[in-house]
């Protein structure tokens, strides 16, 4: 790979190189222990030795040596001691895929389209039920003919098309309207798209339609879902159509207003809306078809992770505070549910349906948030971090030890589950079948989607702007009439309330509640989701939750290293440090937050509401 260097290098390894090399080697050894078998205190020092003398050590020592050598080499190259023209090939690869797509010509677009199509087919295939079998040609054809595939194809084309629209709207706005710009065509197209989706979701839709099947008479839960998804997609299509038809008028109205609004409406309304609808489509439809591994991952891990992460994002991302005891509010929600369903040793005056426990849990969690936040948030924000850390621990200790209230470590009786029995709508969570998981998933979705909408609106409202102002410069914000304490407590309480909702939901799913569900580790895991994904960015946080959720599940099922459940916290801790050092804004950052971090590092304002800067900043 590395081309011949023209100038002979003058190698002289100095102390700095040695340090770099030994750091890399130490890193290799560290990884060897991290991925090796678990140690045992009763045979001291056996532990590290044991890890080192398994096959891991060879791999990781080689890794350490190679990495060290590369780092030293790289340093020489960058400081100009070595001349390596061969490295230039890296620069030839375009890094920004989006600009690559937008700047490409028709031929390239077709190629991209074909590639995307193949990718879609492959995804369709690998998520299919036969994932574990070796794929035969017949199966591939079978997959191709499966209706689900068309759903993916449609989505890919739709996205490509909206991308094209987006590119066009910048350059050719002034062009004369074509047939496709007519309102009725747009509405009709939208409705048709919706019907196509609906058909993908339910292959027999045309048949049912002809049999006037459209009535609420589901004999089982599964039928119920088929009904409502059919309606949902048709409705979505209608909305898309109307949206597209009205876009011109919206553009005209959005003359100025804020940057966000202008961008939102003018440029990418279609793209965004299409992405939202596409994401919703995938979120609703995909879990029915994907492989059992993914079903388990999504139902048991990612779903509740998303809810928790979106809530904590309000505290960390929006308000710039750190809450390390987030799971305490989760516990409060869960125990509120247990209390009102009579699962605790202390009995409520009356039991209530779990759906009505949700608002109560929100209240309880918010109240706890205010009680905890009000005295603490008057002080520098790092006190909040440690007080919440303490609070999380206290809730855990109390839940474990107050046996006559919480049943202690043995766990409560089964907490109330969600059930609804209205004319035409029967919904219940019971048992442990996959169908039950699916029901739970849709329930979760029904909570998450409005919350996403609410928090997104919040972030782009007066409240969100005030948070941004407080993060950047609290003195200036206060001088403009923003009550800093009020907004911080508000963020803290709103975050807490989401955690309370998550507590009710997960307790309804789990049944008995154990204090160990609320250990500190869970709080930190949620922090990792937010930090890794990108604080302040709802998309980032969701994808972060999905990614971490997947990794954790993946490590259990595909253990290529000596992995046990407790090890995940070690990896999560490492993720936190590495993210802070190399990419504090997270993987998919919010633009505003990213700018703040950049400015704060250049001494222009701050990027959090934690308090005065850390001293000793000079090196």
């Amino acid at each position: 790979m590395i081309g011949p260097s023209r100038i002979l290098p003058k190698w002289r390894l100095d102390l700095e190189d040695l340090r770099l090399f030994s750091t890399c080697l130490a890193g290799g050894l560290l990884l060897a222990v991290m991925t090796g078998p678990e140690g045992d205190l009763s045979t001291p020092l056996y532990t590290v030795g044991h890890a080192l003398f398994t096959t891991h050590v060879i791999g990781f020592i080689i890794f350490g040596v190679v990495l060290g050598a590369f780092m030293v080499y790289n340093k020489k190259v960058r400081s100009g001691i070595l001349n390596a023209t061969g490295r230039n090939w890296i620069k030839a690869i375009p890094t920004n895929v989006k600009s690559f797509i937008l700047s490409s010509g028709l031929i390239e677009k077709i190629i991209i389209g074909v590639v995307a199509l193949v990718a879609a087919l492959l995804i369709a295939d690998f998520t299919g039920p036969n994932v574990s079998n070796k794929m035969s040609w017949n199966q591939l054809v079978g997959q191709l003919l499966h209706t689900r595939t068309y759903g993916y194809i449609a989505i890919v084309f739709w996205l490509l098309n909206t991308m094209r629209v987006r590119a066009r709207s910048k350059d050719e706005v002034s062009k004369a309207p074509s047939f496709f710009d007519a309102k009725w065509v747009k509405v009709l197209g939208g409705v048709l798209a919706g019907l196509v989706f609906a058909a993908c979701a339910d292959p027999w839709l045309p048949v049912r339609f002809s049999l006037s099947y459209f009535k609420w008479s589901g004999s089982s839960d599964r039928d119920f879902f088929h009904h409502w998804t059919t309606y949902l997609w048709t409705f979505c299509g209608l909305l898309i159509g109307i949206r597209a038809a009205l876009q011109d008028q919206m553009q005209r109205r959005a003359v100025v207003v804020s940057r966000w609004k202008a961008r939102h409406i003018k440029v990418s309304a279609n793209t965004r809306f299409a992405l939202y609808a596409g994401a919703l489509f995938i979120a609703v439809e995909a879990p029915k078809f994907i492989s059992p591994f993914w079903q388990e991952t999504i139902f048991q891990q990612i779903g509740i992770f998303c809810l928790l992460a979106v809530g904590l994002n309000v505290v960390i991302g929006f308000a710039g505070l750190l809450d390390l005891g987030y799971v305490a509010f989760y516990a409060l929600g869960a125990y509120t549910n247990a209390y009102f369903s009579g699962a605790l040793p202390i009995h409520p005056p009356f039991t209530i349906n779990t759906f009505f426990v949700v608002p109560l849990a929100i209240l309880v969690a918010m109240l706890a948030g205010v009680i905890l936040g009000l005295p603490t948030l008057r002080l520098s924000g790092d006190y909040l971090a440690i007080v919440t850390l303490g609070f999380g621990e206290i809730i855990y200790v109390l839940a474990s030890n107050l046996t006559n209230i919480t049943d202690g470590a043995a766990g409560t009786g089964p907490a109330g589950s969600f059930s609804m029995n209205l004319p035409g709508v029967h919904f219940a969570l019971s048992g442990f079948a996959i169908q039950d998981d699916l029901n739970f998933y849709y329930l979760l979705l029904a909570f998450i989607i409005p919350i996403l909408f609410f928090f997104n609106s919040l972030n782009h409202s007066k409240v969100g702007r005030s948070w941004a102002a407080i993060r950047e410069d609290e003195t200036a914000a206060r001088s403009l009439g923003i009550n800093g304490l009020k907004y911080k407590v508000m963020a803290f309480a709103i975050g807490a309330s989401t955690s309370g909702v998550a507590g009710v939901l997960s307790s309804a799913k789990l049944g008995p509640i154990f204090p160990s569900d609320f250990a500190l580790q869970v709080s930190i895991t949620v922090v990792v989701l937010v930090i890794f994904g990108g604080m302040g960015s709802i998309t980032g946080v969701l994808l972060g939750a999905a990614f971490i959720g997947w990794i954790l599940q993946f490590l259990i099922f595909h253990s290529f290293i000596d992995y046990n459940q407790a090890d995940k916290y070690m990896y999560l801790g490492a993720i936190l440090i590495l993210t802070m050092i190399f990419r504090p804004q997270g993987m998919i950052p919010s633009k505003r937050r990213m700018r703040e971090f950049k400015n704060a590092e250049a001494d222009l304002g701050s990027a959090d509401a934690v308090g005065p800067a850390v001293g000793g900043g000079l090196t």
Partner: protein
Amino acid sequence: MSDVTNTTTPVMTTDNIFEVQNVTLRFGGVTSLNNVSLEQHRGEILAVIGPNGAGKTSLFNCLTGVYRPQEGIINFHAAKHGTVDLVGKQPHRICHMGVARTFQTSRMFNALTTFENIKIGVEASQKSGPIGAMLHLPRTRREERESDHRTLDLLELVGLTHRLNTMADSLPYGDRRRLEIARALGTNPEVLLLDEPAAGTNPSEKLALAELIRTINKETGTSILLIEHDMRLVMSLAERIYVLNFGEVIASGQPAQIQQNPEVVAAYLGATADEGDA
């Protein structure tokens, strides 16, 4: 009650808007303000001058609640709320009463656009809260619309409409100062405290700034309290001047009187060297 131009007419019997009486502020053993008294008439452009470290910014910080003076009274005769003693009030409460300020080193919200910066000031006094924002309630939408319009008006007033969507950190320095004034004006103040608004601007920007301050004063009737180093600007703008030195008021009066006051000249001659390298 869309008071877009904010033409508040004085309704109080007294014509003073600020009465600072015997304010003393100490940090540990250092006395930053010593027995300072001053008064500002309603609708007046009043300047506070003095050498570096004379306590001018400390005075502003006392007026806006950032610092709490150990002694003294700061009476603010608000048209809206009647007479209030500002000592010990929280900065945001003081802002809501009608005292707005800018900062010596401009403190913009750098990751926000020009538009958003001003809008933050405008909407801080609005009533709608998080629930309205989450649910897009009608009142929130109406208030958003109102503050959008007011923000646009302010942008026009300070001549930054073309910079609407620029991030604050990429604005040139002169524009940042104007933006800060607009942001403070957004809170609908009865008195506007400007802390060295012309610092770091070039002569032509200074002229434009003086014009802007005069316009604000004349068109909206806002009283203006000004700290400034540039003597020419102060003399051309201010109706009356207070001179601070070592935390004490050493002189006050019309610009012409101040220029001839020997004590002031002495204080300033001692300080010109400092200003030279500032």
